[in-house]
């Protein structure tokens, strides 16, 4: 990587810290030698100064605190992307890992059922747990799964039990055809799992923080009279890098803040048209004396469809861009931790990662 100041701009008077979006091409992207915005080569790069410039602002949070949108400005894609990747793959959560199936006479096969159970999101704070001691738990030296269910380690495991059997409903109306009224437990939901504390685990939780499934209405299997599922499920702590079931987020993504410039006054019919080619709320029409003038109300809402360039007259006066240093993050938690906690955890993961690697490098120097 050769260092070079990026002073070249694609268009005169277009800011170098923005990506320029044209009808068929995107210009001013990161195709220079570094990802940094135009900088002075003669000045030394200072980390404290870089850190001072970083700015974080909350945009909105859902009522259940599981979805969060926030802005980070004055960082570049490698830093933003590291945060996103850590959120998806390296923040730990608990998930069912070992299923001890005592009975499964349902039509769904053992391995398929066990896989389904593993994917159920658990509502447990993983920070109180330790990682399993071995990567593959419960396989003995002959490569065979253990013959008997282990007791479970209070600091590493959580045990959930499920025991559902389907029976006929004798009180059902003779002409009814709905399985829900004909049978008891014709559908098995995630709510049928009962947490069984190991040792004194119960003392670690209050009523509101009792380990449970995030939602009780996830359909796990369907049964018919005579069929039953009985299993003991052991949850372990893991990261999304190992298996997606450990990923704490449904989505964690970022996008750049769109910018819209109107280089001429757009009035009347054209203003209405301009408003209609953007997403709702992006362009509004204001009264200016007798004229009705289009103004950019909220560029953040733009989907960057570039639909405006299909109108020849509008394309000449509208300039679309994206701010390269303004990242709009959107984090959607699966339920174990609040989104805001996840972001904090992700930063911590990155910090410990750097610290431990740094120590190992220092050990190499000696």
């Amino acid at each position: 990587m050769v260092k070079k100041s990026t002073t070249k701009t694609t268009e005169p008077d277009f800011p170098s810290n923005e990506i320029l979006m044209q009808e068929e091409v995107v210009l001013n992207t990161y195709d220079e030698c570094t990802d940094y915005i135009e900088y002075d080569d003669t000045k030394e790069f200072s980390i404290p100064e870089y850190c001072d410039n970083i700015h974080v602002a909350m945009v909105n949070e859902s009522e259940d605190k599981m979805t969060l949108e926030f802005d980070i400005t004055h960082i570049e894609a490698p830093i933003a992307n590291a945060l996103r990747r850590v959120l998806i793959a390296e923040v730990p959560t608990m998930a069912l890992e070992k299923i001890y199936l005592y009975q499964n006479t349902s039509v769904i096969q053992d391995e398929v059922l066990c896989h389904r159970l593993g994917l159920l999101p658990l509502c447990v704070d993983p920070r109180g747990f330790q990682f399993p001691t071995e990567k593959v738990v419960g396989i003995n030296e002959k490569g065979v799964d253990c013959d008997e269910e282990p007791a479970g380690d209070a600091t590493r495991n959580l045990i959930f039990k499920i025991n559902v059997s389907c029976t006929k409903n004798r009180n059902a109306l003779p002409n009814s055809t709905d399985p829900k009224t004909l049978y008891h437990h014709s559908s098995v939901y995630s709510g049928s799992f009962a947490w069984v504390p190991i040792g004194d685990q119960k003392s670690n939780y209050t009523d509101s923080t009792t380990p449970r499934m995030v939602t009780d209405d996830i359909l796990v299997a369907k049964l018919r009279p005579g069929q039953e599922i009985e299993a003991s499920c052991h949850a372990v702590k893991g990261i999304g890098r190992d298996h997606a079931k450990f990923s704490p987020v449904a989505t964690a993504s970022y996008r750049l803040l769109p910018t819209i410039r109107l280089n001429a006054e757009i009035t009347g019919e054209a203003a209405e048209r301009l408003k209609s080619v953007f997403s709702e709320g992006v362009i509004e029409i204001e009264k200016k004396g007798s004229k009705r003038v289009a103004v950019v109300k909220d560029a953040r809402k733009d989907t960057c469809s570039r639909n405006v360039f299909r109108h020849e007259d509008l394309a000449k006066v509208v300039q679309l861009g994206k701010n390269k240093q303004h990242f709009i993050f959107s984090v959607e938690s699966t339920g174990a931790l609040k989104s805001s906690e996840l972001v904090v955890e992700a930063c911590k993961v990155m910090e410990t990662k750097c610290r431990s690697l740094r120590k190992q490098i220092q050990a190499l120097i000696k």
Partner: protein
Amino acid sequence: MGKKSEKTEKPVEEAMEVEEKPPVEPEAEEEDLNVPAKKKMEILDPKSFEQDPSNLTLILYEEDHTIGNSIKHILSRMDEVEFCGYNVPHPLEDKILFRVQTKDGINALEVLVKAFESVEQIFSTIRGKFEESYEQSIS
């Protein structure tokens, strides 16, 4: 019959021993990191590195673009660095190669230590500012 069965058993035992060995080797020690760590890094061609400590290729096991790209990002702005880059040799091998070329007489490992410090600092800043801004938003 008895002898025959003995003969057939032996190769099976041997084969199993061979299978067992590889996973044992890398799992040497554990660290109190969030991920149970094994041997995490290695210098590629340590002899040539000893001769010229400004030229380093470091293998980082169980790391990916998350660390690779963010460290590269910081290194590329450091004055001591002539060239830096990383590469994922194969998607199925869980490792990255990190290449650093520093200016004459500067130890590449020391520069790398500085880069890791910087990235740690950046993320602790982001965390601090995030917490602060979140506190404000809910109050």
